[in-house]
């Protein structure tokens, strides 16, 4: 009886045994990478806005405080997107004819809010509160990055749960003195010094680490 298989199939058989394992490992590796890539998380991506508002110009250049526009950041879960009125405090006098600002004037005249595109959008099953983070010494830049260097708003981090937990499990790695919370240029001391400072601040601000990883803290 003739052979059914050519001798070369031996090689294929062996290759599929080991190849299957490698393929499986490779698929898992790629899946884990894709799941964390900006393609899924939007990390590092700029968003088109109705008005190309530049934080770089307003914060970095002019030195306007975060709270001038995001008024409720210290008192409420939501930092607050400024109303057109806030823009008009300056722009009713400055650049009154600039073409770029036409949507702002239109919004003002028609009494219709500007439809900004949300950049940092957490899932609805996550309860996030800005005020408590600000009150416990988490700097704006820790989560939002160097906003004073962003010509258009960009999502600085992945906003993945692992990213949240990185701080919730070890807040001493990130907390800073309260008076530096709105300081974009604040540089954490880094290394052992940050840990020492962080541990001191965690004590001082009564940050109860054992509660921070309770599911119900964020998923209510």
């Amino acid at each position, binding site marked *: 009886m003739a052979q*059914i*298989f050519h001798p070369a199939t*031996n090689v294929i*058989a062996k290759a599929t045994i080991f190849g299957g394992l490698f393929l499986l490992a490779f698929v*898992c590796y790629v899946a*884990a990478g894709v*799941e*964390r890539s900006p393609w899924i998380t939007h990390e590092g991506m700029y968003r088109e806005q109705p008005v190309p508002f530049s934080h770089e110009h307003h914060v970095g250049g002019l030195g306007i405080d975060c709270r001038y526009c995001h008024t409720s950041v210290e008192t409420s879960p939501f930092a607050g997107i400024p109303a057109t009125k806030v823009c008009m405090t300056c722009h009713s006098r400055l650049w009154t004819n600039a073409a770029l600002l036409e949507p702002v004037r239109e919004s003002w005249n028609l009494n219709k809010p500007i439809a900004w595109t949300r950049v940092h959008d957490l899932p609805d099953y996550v309860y996030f509160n800005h005020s408590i983070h600000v009150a416990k010494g988490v700097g704006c830049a820790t989560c939002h990055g160097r906003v004073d260097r962003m010509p258009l708003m960009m999502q600085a981090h*992945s906003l*993945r*749960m*692992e990213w949240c*937990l*990185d701080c919730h499990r070890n807040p001493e790695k990130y907390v800073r003195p309260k008076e530096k919370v709105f300081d974009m240029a604040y540089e954490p001391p880094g290394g052992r010094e940050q840990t020492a400072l962080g541990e001191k601040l965690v004590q001082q601000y009564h940050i109860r680490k054992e509660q921070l990883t309770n599911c119900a803290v964020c998923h209510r």
Partner: protein
Amino acid sequence: MTDQVIQPGHTFATVTDKIASIVLTRPIGRGWLVLVVITGFLTIMLSTAVGYLLAVGVGIWGVDVPVAWGFAIVNFVWWIGIGHAGTFISAFLLLLRQDWRTSINRFAEAMTLFAVACAGLFPLLHLGRPWFFYWLFPYPNTMKLWPQWRSPLVWDVFAVSTYATVSLIFWYVGLIPDLATLRDRSRHRVGRVVYGILAMGWRNSARHWHRYQMAYLLLAGLAAPLVVSVHSIVGMDFASAQLPGWHSTIFPPYFVAGAIFSGFAMVMTLAIPLRAVYGLKDFITARHLDNCAKLMLVTGLIVAYGYSSEIFLAWLSGNEFEWYMTTNRMGGAYGPAFWALILCNVVIPQSLWFKRVRVNPKTLWIVSLVINVGMWLERYVIVITSLHRDFLPSSWGMYYPTIWDWATFIGTLGFFLLCVLLFIRVLPAISIFEMRELVHETSLAPAPAAAEGGK
């Protein structure tokens, strides 16, 4: 006569012919076709029920507070228990050198695989969002979460997935020499190629056999502890809860005994029609029926001991909730289910004390069916009666399975039988090479002593 594990007069060739012909040459019978159509429809019903569940959610089932574990968990425990006989036969009895296992181990292992497939379906669907089932595994996820290792439900994931993997590998390794036989005997090119690929280049050389025996024994050694561990863990799903009726240390061992009890009942339920229809009475003899029936009797008695111990300890504890649960189980709304279970699992199996019942295929088949029903009822009673009335009378309630509960359960029965039917026609239902070994051993010994081979 009836004491033989293989009827006299068989040679290597007749054994091979007989078993391989079911796969290779036997035409498709009308009865088989009718059964495939019926079970195929039931499988379609199952996929409809599952599809609807995925679309709408577990609300289509009867589960609610307080009975949040309904049919899904009952069916899961029942199916996974059935699988245990396959592993018991193939691993335990192999290590104990019981030669009578040879003719039933192959399809018992196949039965294990199909039962585990049916079992695995239920907890997955019960998750609510089954597409996130992989959250139960410890892998570096973007949530930075690790499974809750103190939960027996996580142990379940590992127990069942290990069990499924080891059973599959064990079954496949056992098939390799037979696949080579089919490859060599197949008259169609497609058959030769497919069986050839599956046989993985088996050439029947002495070196192959040497390595093969070693691998098979090692796998049996790996599989043997699983017989005990898997259903113990399933038992702990209940025992580690605080609920009266579940919170009992006897659960793991008595669940294992119950699993083997129901598994052998299912083996007999399948084996008796199989040997009649395909003329395998020479290989699955009255000796096999007798041995399996004895095992059912023993495990049935252990299970009965479990029931009485539960009742006795509920009384001994003096705990009013335990005792209320016990009386409510026997005399409450689900009392008839309890007494039906006692009838099926304790009373009727006592008929197996009589040899006439054990070696008569018809009576044994009926007793096996009764035990299958009884073991399902046992899980029903454990799950439902314990949950429906716990500590607080304000949270008491009743459980009513919906049509979708029934469709899913009956659908898995259809799917299971469909798999068995297809298996019988595409793979050798009895291990050819092990039967040849048996012929070799029995023909070397003088004729009367052959009967004593397995003692």
